């Protein structure tokens, strides 16, 4: 048992790859609106950027590589042709190569997780980093699903990641409701990143130029043999109801009357 672990560790350390999934989402500062046909949020003529949590995930992967624990950082994005721009930003930050799984469908987390699992089977990374959630759907599911599909340990909402190269273990501080929880996870593992983990670097102009020549491999879901049929269908997207203005009441009796007969809460 120990022998095989140390053999796999040596193998991992020398050639460890880190796979980072990055999502192209509506920029966080943009005011969104629902499409008139209610099928979703308007993304035409809207500024798109890399999901902020994915930026943090990529930054952490780059720092691990720069510390000497990994050989290669691979950025992956799943979506339409413009995802290449998001991958180029990732390459400009320092990722070594990119993989673009091109599709015009908008996939839900389980499908994305299946695609990432297929890629992990091909690339054999020692770590998979994702942002804890995407700011467009706030699902907070993909990382956890990838770990389950792969049978790997997971450490989500990471606010600190420390790698122990001797023991092939990552010690992760997680931000949970009650405070901070520290976990040791054996590699290979899935880690999803939270806000306080790091501050992502700016892509410098020379790096942006160099990134143009880094390779981005195009793939399709058929190449990865992934079943994309979804169990969930989005029926309608609407704006939240406008908050009604408050009403002043003149007496306690009036308040009780309103609570009973209008709001039906008593």
């Amino acid at each position: 048992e120990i022998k095989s672990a140390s053999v796999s560790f040596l193998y991992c350390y020398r050639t460890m790859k880190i796979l980072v999934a990055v999502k192209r989402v509506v920029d966080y500062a943009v005011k969104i609106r629902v499409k008139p046909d209610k099928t979703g949020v308007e993304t035409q003529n809207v500024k798109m950027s890399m999901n902020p949590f994915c930026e943090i995930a990529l930054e952490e992967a780059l720092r691990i590589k720069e510390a000497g624990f990994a050989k290669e950082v691979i950025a992956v994005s799943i979506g339409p042709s413009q995802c290449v721009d998001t991958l180029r930003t990732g390459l400009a930050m320092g990722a070594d190569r990119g993989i673009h799984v091109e599709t015009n469908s908008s996939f839900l987390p389980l499908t994305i997780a299946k695609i990432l699992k297929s890629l992990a089977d091909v690339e054999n990374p020692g770590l998979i980093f994702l942002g804890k959630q995407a700011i467009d759907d706030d699902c907070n599911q993909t990382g956890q699903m990838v770990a389950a599909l792969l049978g790997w340990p997971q450490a989500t909402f990471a606010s600190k990641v420390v790698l122990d190269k001797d023991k092939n273990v990552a010690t992760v501080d997680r931000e949970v409701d009650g405070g901070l929880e520290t976990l040791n996870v054996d590699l290979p593992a899935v880690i999803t990143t939270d806000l306080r983990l790091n501050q992502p670097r700016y892509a410098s102009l020379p790096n942006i130029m160099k990134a143009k020549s880094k390779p981005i491999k195009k793939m399709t879901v058929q190449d990865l043999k992934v079943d994309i049929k979804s169990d969930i269908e989005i029926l309608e997207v609407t704006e939240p109801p406008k908050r009604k203005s408050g009403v002043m009441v003149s007496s306690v009796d009036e308040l009780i009357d309103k609570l009973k007969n209008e709001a039906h809460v008593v």
Partner: protein
Amino acid sequence: MHRFLVKLSSSSSNPLRSLKNQRLILPLLPSSKSFSSSSVSPPTRPSNASNRFGYPYFAEFLIKLSPLSSNSRTLGVNGSSSRCISSEAGRESIEYDVLIVGAGPAGLSAAIRLKQLSQEKNIDLSVCVVEKGAEVGGHIISGNVFEPLALDELLPHWRQEHAPIEIPASSDKFWFLTKDRAISLPSPFDNKGNYVISLSQFVRWLGGKAEELGTEIYPGFSASEVLYDASDKVVGIATKDMGISKDGSKKENFQPGVDIKGRVTLFAEGCRGSLSERIIKKYKLREEVNAQHQTYALGIKEVWEIDESKHNPGEVIHTLGWPLDPKTYGGSFLYHMNDRQVALGLVVALNYHNPFLNPYEEFQKLKHHPAIKGILEGGTVLQYGARTLNEGGFQSIPYPVFPGGAIIGCSAGFLNVPKIKGTHTAMKSGMLAAEAAFGALHEGLNMNTYWDNLRDSWVWKELYAARNYRPAFEYGLLPGLAVSAMEHYVLKGKVPFTLKHGKADHEATDLARKCTPIVYPKPDGVLSFDVPTSLYRSNTNHDHDQPSHLRLRDPKIPEKVNFPEYAAPESRYCPARVYEYIEDEEGKPKLQINAQNCLHCKACDIKDPKQNIEWTVPEGGGGPAYSLM
């Protein structure tokens, strides 16, 4: 990686150094020291006479450059070549043949023209465009009824290339508004053949065309300084350091800026460009041709999505009169675009007298006018934005060439005020500068040909014919309208005199005690809105932890002068509520600058009475994110 390191070690092959060596061999050169101070003033520019190079400055500013290819390292990226990267003392330096600051209509037209010439003559030219917006088109806002004259020259097949120019102008309405009525007047505009477009969308398309031809465009990088060589010639720009915290210290993700050098540098920063203004001052480019000061207006715009039944694509409406008083020049526009969208805005000339005037609130008032309200009711606002524009026209055009490059587009000021169109002239100026730059780099000519070609072009004829409309309004609304009618129907600019502009905008503000405060109605949340709500719709954002990009030359002037004497005009004309006076611990008013809100409109740089506010670039990528404007 290694190909960049190789360049570092051989400093003797630094093309700029070899350039200097070349210049010293040229005859009649005083030593470079004599040009470092302002003791030598550039000669006044007579219309035809010049020294034998046809250039007002001394010979060493002549750009006699040999191609860099012998010294440069071909990087082979996107087919571009002759670009070198070197690094000294932590600052990297990247060199191009032509550097263009600003990816707007002028900058991109120049890039496209350069690449076209380079393809035609089979000479490779590396062209780089830097843009402070996060995306090309993100900082672009304009009316816009587009005259395709320059585009027809630049890209004759644009109609087959999916340009976002689809809605031809179908009607020209002109209304004089009173508080309750809209009086139809004969339209002074003739927009037949023009198109109602979103300039932001058009510039994005134009950027795509420029990239297809091999231009390197880098959005998200703001040019914060001009770089000069020892002979005071412009050699490029430095991008702003990123990752500096509010107190000036370096943050964890500090990234030093980069020096981007060009054998020719073109400034295309738009109206009141921050670096362009410095260049104009430094080389005294207005004095050079006896040009007047530039005058400006502030345009505030919203894009609405309205009821299908009220939407009439191609309809063009302009108004005059209410809500502005007869002493304030300005008017509104309402253009029907496609997709049920209308562009609606108010333009207020910045030489208004009453410091209590609030252009944003005037715009909110306008929307309640019965004629405008009818169109907007039932609709929603999609985007909001604001930007200053040039109104100086012909009289204010500076000499646009300086040692090392030229100024193109609205940074120089080619907007045709009576037509209220500046896009076509900006594009043409970019094309002419590109042709001059190509000539300077490869045919032994110099950038001076840009000035000559401008004056021979339709841009000059157009601006000359339009020169007397705006200054006539100095005498009031009715005299202005009378002169406009005369000019439009009879004179068409063929008079022997040129009217002059009045005082500079910042000097035109009266003292607060001489003026009546204006009380503006509260926004109703349906047609009119408060500033924070509108600002949210501009998608503007800046990293909050950076030093304020709005600099006060004297930090005491706001409390000593602006507040007591002018009733804090900056808290009224700024369309983004950047400037607020709050009470400090002693109950005294103190200026608070909310730099994060800034829309990059430059109104404060123009209108501050003591010219105390200097607009400088924030970190690249910040600012509004216009997509429909």
